[in-house]
């Protein structure tokens, strides 16, 4: 088995891109990654591409080949991965395992999605395909609905009055919009950077108790990462960022998970797998890019990842522990809430930010970090992926 490292990373501006196809959008992210990788195009041996609902938003499936052809690589193996919001994280983990086990030396990973251009009614339906299609969607359950159910469960589980909990989790939105407003590639760049608790509580109700500002937006965007075995990477770039561990876990329908829902058990399994491989504990993580599709989602993630005790995550964000000057900075790039959530591109966009931050290249926010963790959630805990990145090979 070999060590694996990231060479270059790329990300489009997140927002609305109705003028580009999915392969065209991906090419933009790929060119940025390629141009900073110091490799020849033909050294890329395979493509691992994440996309969630291309069939619904763009009438596009079988995307592997079209992606390869778009960037001048037609002919090499090109796979499309689907794991809902974790699609490109699943792709990343499979790419990592292939390089680690010597199948390939150098591969391209990434994702693209166009949910903003699809419009809210179709986008909401497309996202709901990640729920149990027979037994959850029939009631009209949506993703904001799922996390609204979870917010009420969380309030009961830890005996927090619902209105109190709403105020506490509003700080996730305030924090992530504050950082997202500074991120030039974020959907809300230069917007919503000074929210107050009342702004979050009083914005449009989507699925009570969650308002619009508790939710991440619908986003078009793409991201790309080039990885290789560590010896190869060290010859090509000055600062390879090493993949120290990965984890993945699964679960079925939300209702079958019962009280495990608030503990996000698949995430705990996935994170423990990644920590074990990396030989670290949650305390060793300097910065985390966590799946904040909704405010409450970041809170339960911060607990399941081992940063806080169960039931204490909402207090932690309110007390500032997850802000950039806190114990464990979470989502200093704005997260999904501030930066945007182009579903199939989100996982490798987290890796984009993590790599940039570890290299000290994330100009708009300063966090001293040597170890970063990414956390991507697909569906209602159906697919969970964690990746641990470090500036050190061992």
């Amino acid at each position, binding site marked *: 088995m070999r060590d694996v490292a990231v060479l270059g990373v790329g990300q489009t501006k997140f927002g609305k891109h109705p003028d580009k196809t999915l392969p065209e959008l991906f090419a933009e992210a790929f060119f940025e990654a390629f141009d900073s990788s110091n490799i020849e195009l033909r050294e890329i041996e395979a493509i691992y591409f994440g996309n969630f609902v291309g069939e619904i938003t763009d009438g596009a499936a079988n995307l592997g080949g079209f992606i390869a052809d778009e960037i001048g690589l037609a002919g090499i193996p090109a796979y499309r991965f689907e794991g809902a919001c974790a699609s490109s994280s699943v792709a990343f983990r499979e790419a990592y395992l292939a390089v680690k086990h010597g199948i390939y030396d150098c591969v391209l990973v990434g994702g693209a999605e166009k949910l903003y251009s699809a419009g809210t*009614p179709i986008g909401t339906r497309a996202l709901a395909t990640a729920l149990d299609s027979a037994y959850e969607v*029939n009631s*009209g359950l*949506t993703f904001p609905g799922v996390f609204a159910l979870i917010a009420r469960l969380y309030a009961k589980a830890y005996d927090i009055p619902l209105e109190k909990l709403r105020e506490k989790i509003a700080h996730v939105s305030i924090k992530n919009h504050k950082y997202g407003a500074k991120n030039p590639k974020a959907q809300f760049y230069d917007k919503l950077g000074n929210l107050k608790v009342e702004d979050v509580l009083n914005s449009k109700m989507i*699925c*009570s108790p969650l308002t619009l500002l508790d939710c991440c937006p619908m986003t078009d965007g793409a991201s790309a990462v080039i990885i290789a075995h560590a010896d190869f990477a060290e010859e090509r770039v000055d600062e390879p960022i090493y993949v120290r561990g990965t984890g993945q876990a699964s679960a079925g329908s939300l*209702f079958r998970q019962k009280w495990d829902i608030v503990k996000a058990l698949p995430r705990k399994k996935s994170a423990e797998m990644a920590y074990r491989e990396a030989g670290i504990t949650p305390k060793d993580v300097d910065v985390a890019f966590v799946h904040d599709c909704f405010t409450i989602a970041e809170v339960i993630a911060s607990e399941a990842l081992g940063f806080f005790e169960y039931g204490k995550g909402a207090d932690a964000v309110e007390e500032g522990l997850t802000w950039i000057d806190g114990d464990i900075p979470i989502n200093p790039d704005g997260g999904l809430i501030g930066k945007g959530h182009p579903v199939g591109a989100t996982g490798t966009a987290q890796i984009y930010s993590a790599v940039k931050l570890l290299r000290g290249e994330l100009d708009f926010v300063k966090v001293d970090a040597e170890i970063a963790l990414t956390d991507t959630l697909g569906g209602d805990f159906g697919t969970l992926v964690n990746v641990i990145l470090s500036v050190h090979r061992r």
Partner: protein
Amino acid sequence: MFKEFFSELLEGNLIGAKCKECEKILCPPKSACDCGSRILEKIKLSGKGKIVSYTVTYVAPIGYDKEVPYVVAMVELDEGPWIVGRLEVDAERAEKEDLIGKRVEVYGKEFPTEQFYPDKQRRVVPMFRIIE
């Protein structure tokens, strides 16, 4: 399997499965128990339980937009399983009152299907009626 579950629900029967090996009760039934066993006995559940969580939905997906606002709930059945359905209360009451813990009974209601729903003839929704 899922069509039978909803046909029975329209008849007033909530169908589940009991694992002959570990005794776990599954609702709706699955192809195998969580323990892996395929020896499952079809059973009829009481159809009663209590609300564990709910949300009033104001922004619906395409195909459901004519039904807003509607209340989606998760209910813990007396036999143990949780199921998702729609709560038969108006949005205003659901927003004002804490309905968690209320006793409910379930029945099936037919809605028009939509293009992505697996049953192309109809969409049956488990409806929860508050009984206390």
